[in-house]
């Protein structure tokens, strides 16, 4: 079966929910929620059915209709179906579905319940649109729609000034990235004459120099879009503020899916990026990862810590793309979607239990009170830190290995250091918020959340645990290998071949571990999945062991400082640097003082010109001049006969002088 209608259905079901809810069911809260949840869960089921029937590389791989056609400007509305987009659809509908169900419990007392689900469905539709887009303009359209659904959801509690401001800020910052993005699209279209990804890819594979000298600029302009959406430095400032939205929104949009859109887009258009652009992208990613991990260390709001952690992980992914490793980037995107959504939902469970308390120094001792939340949160934290066999270990290791294999040792060092910091801030959060004695009365009276919130946690915890070794990376790797885009480093290519063929007697790793580990490994590999679990150690042992070491250092530091700590000991030790971290290195203040102020200043000047020069000066002078000449001329029409006679005589005299005098 081909099932061509399914992808359209999957895409448009959430839109249907998003239109029906505000038009008809705004007052029926449960109906609205069920519509929205039904749309996304059906989407998930249909995606699974589609993949089961067509595999990861369906034919045809594109479904297209014409959307707009003027002269040589042809814009299609199409769906691109390949391993990349199908994988993302599973994430968006799967993780998204879990979060939708969780929201049913989390938001049940809010008076904007129906509106919330309408916005969630609008978001799901836009996100699926990004995932399925087969051309740049369609991508841009859904890109903007995702931006606006994020605006609506961050500002969901719009009566709170901080939420309203955060929504505005997120939209502006994203728009700043989109400015570069659209400019990049214009450049690419002018140079290559097409907007369709497949056509562009074929053009560039046939003639790699087709973009000419502007290749790097075009690539970096398009990267601007990803910088906005995936909150990369210097456009990272909106994401922490976005935590003003309800917690399920933070989990769905600002951790699992929307912020990953930038990374997904880069993986989609990686054929456009030339080595210079990739180099810049890698360093921006690495720097973002480092910067936000440092900031996360000194935050006290549980959601903000997770937000900066998201930034840092996104930095990892962007760095991986920059190291021409879309596979590790997409792999980390997937596992990150599982464990970060889990962490946010766990945080939401805690926040609700403590009556909207978000300060970790007012929590503590939640292990007995909220066991499910506690254990699932721990799984999420371990996955984030990269402890084997949790999923995060595999994807993070793939990124470290990518840096190692491409011989980019400075970035490898950055990534390893960030791994130390990640473990440190996560276990700081964990020790302070979950372990030890309750620090407030609310914390001691906390109780576990209802089942509708707990079950999504359990589900996500399973995936956060096993997501690393169930073959996700192979599907993505195969996609890039088939499309001929990626020239693999021989090592990882052979590894992949080895393990796909599932032949433990292949010569490569036997040579590598020359007999010492041989017998032990042979025994281990008798256990199902074990070769997948141990794959990183065989593929790139250096990266794996350094990564593990980083986790160990981070954990020991966090344990020694924060176990049973009543207040943060770090500011005393670090002094001014800790203050800078706490204040997010003053980026918000810098932007406020430069970008916004500059616009306001220009606006003031322009307004002044408009008011006083154009309006008062220009028009005023014309009016005043007319007025004045009117008054002057009035003096001549006095109605006084003598005056007229005098003027008449004067006129005659002047005429006579002209005629006779010369």
């Amino acid at each position, binding site marked *: 079966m081909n099932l061509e209608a399914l992808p359209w259905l999957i895409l448009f079901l959430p839109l249907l929910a998003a239109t029906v809810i505000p038009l008809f069911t705004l007052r029926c809260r449960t109906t609205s929620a069920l519509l929205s949840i039904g749309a996304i869960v059906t989407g998930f089921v249909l995606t699974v059915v589609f993949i089961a029937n067509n595999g990861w590389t369906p034919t045809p791989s594109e479904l297209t209709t014409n959307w707009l*056609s*003027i002269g040589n400007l042809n814009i299609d509305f199409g769906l691109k179906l390949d391993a990349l987009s199908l994988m993302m659809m599973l994430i968006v509908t799967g993780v998204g579905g879990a979060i939708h169900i969780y929201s049913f419990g989390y938001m049940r007392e809010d008076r904007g319940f129906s509106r919330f689900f309408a916005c969630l469905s609008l978001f799901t539709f836009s996100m699926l649109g990004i995932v399925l887009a087969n051309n740049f303009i369609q991508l841009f359209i859904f890109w903007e729609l995702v931006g606006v659904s994020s605006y609506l959801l961050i500002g969901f509690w719009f009566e709170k000034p901080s939420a309203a401001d955060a929504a505005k800020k997120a939209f502006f910052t994203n728009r700043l990235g989109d*400015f570069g993005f659209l400019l990049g699209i*214009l450049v690419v279209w002018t140079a290559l004459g097409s907007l369709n990804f497949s056509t562009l890819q074929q053009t560039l594979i046939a003639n790699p120099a087709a973009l000419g000298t502007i290749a790097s600029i075009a690539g970096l302009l398009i990267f601007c879009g990803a910088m906005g959406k995936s909150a990369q430095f210097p456009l990272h400032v909106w994401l922490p503020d976005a935590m003003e939205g309800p917690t399920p929104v933070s989990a769905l949009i600002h951790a699992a899916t929307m912020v990953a859109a930038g990374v997904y887009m880069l993986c989609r258009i990686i054929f456009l990026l030339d080595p210079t652009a990739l180099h810049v992208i890698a360093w921006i990613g690495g720097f973002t990862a480092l910067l936000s991990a440092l900031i996360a260390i000194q935050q006290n709001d549980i959601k903000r810590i997770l937000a900066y952690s998201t930034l840092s992980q996104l930095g990892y992914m962007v760095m991986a793309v920059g190291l021409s490793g879309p596979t590790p980037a997409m792999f980390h995107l997937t596992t990150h979607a599982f464990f970060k959504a889990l962490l946010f939902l766990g945080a939401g469970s805690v926040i609700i239990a403590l009556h909207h308390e978000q300060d970790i120094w007012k929590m503590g001792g939640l292990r007995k009170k909220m066991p499910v939340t506690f254990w699932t949160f721990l799984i999420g934290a371990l996955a984030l830190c990269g402890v084997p066999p949790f999923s995060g270990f595999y994807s993070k290791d793939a990124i470290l290995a990518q840096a190692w294999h491409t011989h980019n040792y400075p970035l490898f060092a950055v990534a390893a250091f960030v791994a130390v910091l990640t473990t440190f801030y996560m276990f700081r959060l964990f020790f302070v918020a979950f372990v030890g004695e309750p620090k407030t009365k609310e914390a001691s009276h906390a109780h576990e959340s209802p089942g509708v919130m707990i079950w999504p946690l359990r589900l996500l915890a399973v995936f956060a645990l096993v997501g690393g070794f169930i073959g996700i990376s192979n599907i993505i790797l195969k996609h890039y290998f088939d499309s001929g885009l990626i020239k693999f480093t021989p090592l990882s290519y052979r590894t992949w071949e080895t393990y796909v063929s599932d032949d433990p007697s292949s010569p490569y790793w036997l040579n590598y571990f020359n007999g010492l580990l041989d017998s032990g490994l042979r025994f281990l590999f008798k256990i199902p999945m074990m070769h997948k679990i141990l794959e990183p150690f065989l593929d790139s042992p250096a990266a794996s062991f350094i990564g593990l070491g980083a986790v160990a250092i981070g954990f020991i530091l966090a344990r020694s400082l924060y176990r049973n700590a009543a207040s943060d000991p770090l500011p005393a030790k670090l002094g001014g640097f800790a203050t800078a971290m706490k204040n997010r290195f003053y980026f918000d203040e810098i932007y406020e003082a430069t970008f916004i102020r500059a616009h306001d200043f220009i606006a003031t000047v322009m307004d002044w010109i*408009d008011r006083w020069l*154009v309006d008062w000066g220009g028009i005023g002078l014309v009016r005043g001049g007319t007025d004045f000449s009117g008054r002057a001329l009035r003096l001549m029409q006095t109605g006084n006969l003598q005056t007229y006679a005098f003027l008449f005589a004067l006129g005659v005299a002047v005429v006579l002088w002209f005629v006779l005098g010369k």
Partner: protein
Amino acid sequence: MSILTYILGWPLLAAVALVFVPRNYRVIIRAVAVLATFISMLLAVKMFCQFVTGHAGYQFEQQIPWVESLGISYHVGVDGLNVGLILMGAIVAFAAACCSFEIQSREKEFYILLLVMTGGILGAFASLDLFFFYFLHELALVPTFIMIGVWGRGERKNYATFQITLYLSIGALIALIGLIALYLQVPADLRTAGKIGFDIPKLTEFFRNNPMAGGAQNFIFPLLLLGFGILVSLWPFHTWAPLGYGSAPSPTAMLHAGVLKKFGLYGLIRIALPLMPQAAQHWMQILAWLCLGNILYVGWVAMRQRNLNLLIGNSSVAHMGFIFLGIASLNLIGVTGAVIIMIAHGFLAALSFGLSGYIYQQTGTLEMGELGGLARKLPFVGPALLMAALAGCGLPGFANFVGEVTVFFGAWKVFPVVTGLALWGALMISALYMLRAMRNVLHGPLPEKWSGIPDASNVWRKLPYALLLASLLVFGCFPRLLTEKITPDAEKIVKMVTENVGGLVAGDASSRGRESAPSKQSDSQRRLTSAATEPK
């Protein structure tokens, strides 16, 4: 009788009928006005659906000779350029009539003026005769001044009335001089009925074959550009617009900003570009930079506004910049984009002014400092206003996005620097002022004094806004509804501008024209012979 005659005839007829209705029959007066615009709208929708795409020449044509010695005749017809504009105008007119609830004094006079304005502007867009084209526009323009003067609001009402009257009269006058000069370029023996006269298709045909002398082009084109430019609030002749709209009653602002203002742009595309290609090529370089005045400068001015209506007025001026940029690019993509924005902005301006009018009616103020948190109390008007603001900053899904992005694609090759800066205006500056306004009006805590403010609850109150929003969404999601109609005729205009530039020697150009476009030639011949009969 052409359907077009009915579309513009119903409102005018209703205006005449209202003269005989006693002034205290308020319900009847209102019902007549709403009904007339409603019929007119239905007919316009019918016409839009019946329009045959790809049909060469004009459709729904009708011609009745009037002053034969001067060659003036009543001649209406549509092609891809004005079919969407007439549809937009008719929908906005109906919405404006519905929104006239807010008029509480001298209703009779107000509705008569509104209907005259509607009929006039729809007629101007439908007209294929230069005389009626101008005359019907003036017929629509004059009521604007009276409406602002009598039913306007705010302290600066009188100043605004003076300013808008003077500006627009001068603009119209300059355009008139240009149009008369244009008419005089036709040889005297051809200026009578049945030959060329004031007939726009025949004028176009004539000047295609006998290009106008360079000197005449260089004299007439600037006059038209300046005259039409002032009517469209081209920078730096824009200050009348925000103040005028800020002081106008909202139905007037809806009709003027939405529909009437597009007259100048339509005139530029329909008349100035094809008849004076050489001058157009020259002046478009300047226009491209002037449009940045609209997009950036006025955008920044909009950022400083503290009154919602002044902000919407300024943003409406800023949007004109994108249309000018599309026209200035002088290629198919750009001109098509310009026509799309003309239609999209018509809906958008009407929607924004209609909604701000509703808020003004309920609160008595549009100072953003005094408003706030209204989204909670206005579950219909609030989201609608938010959607209008998002459409105003070019959000996909709304028709404005299609137009703007098309204009950028068209202009990018010709004016990369200007397009880049315009892109900044479209994506950043508009978002800055629109979202700030929404933050101040809809979001944040609700001041105590607005806790009793009612939402638009009955269907008649919601209908105009819903209709305008739906139009924006339909054309935004299915742009081919418009582009398929616009593209063939925009292509003709662009061809005339780009092809006729070199051939200033009359004979040479005409022979070249005949060779290159035989089908067009025969088609226009057919049109010349069958001009007086109406195709059915």
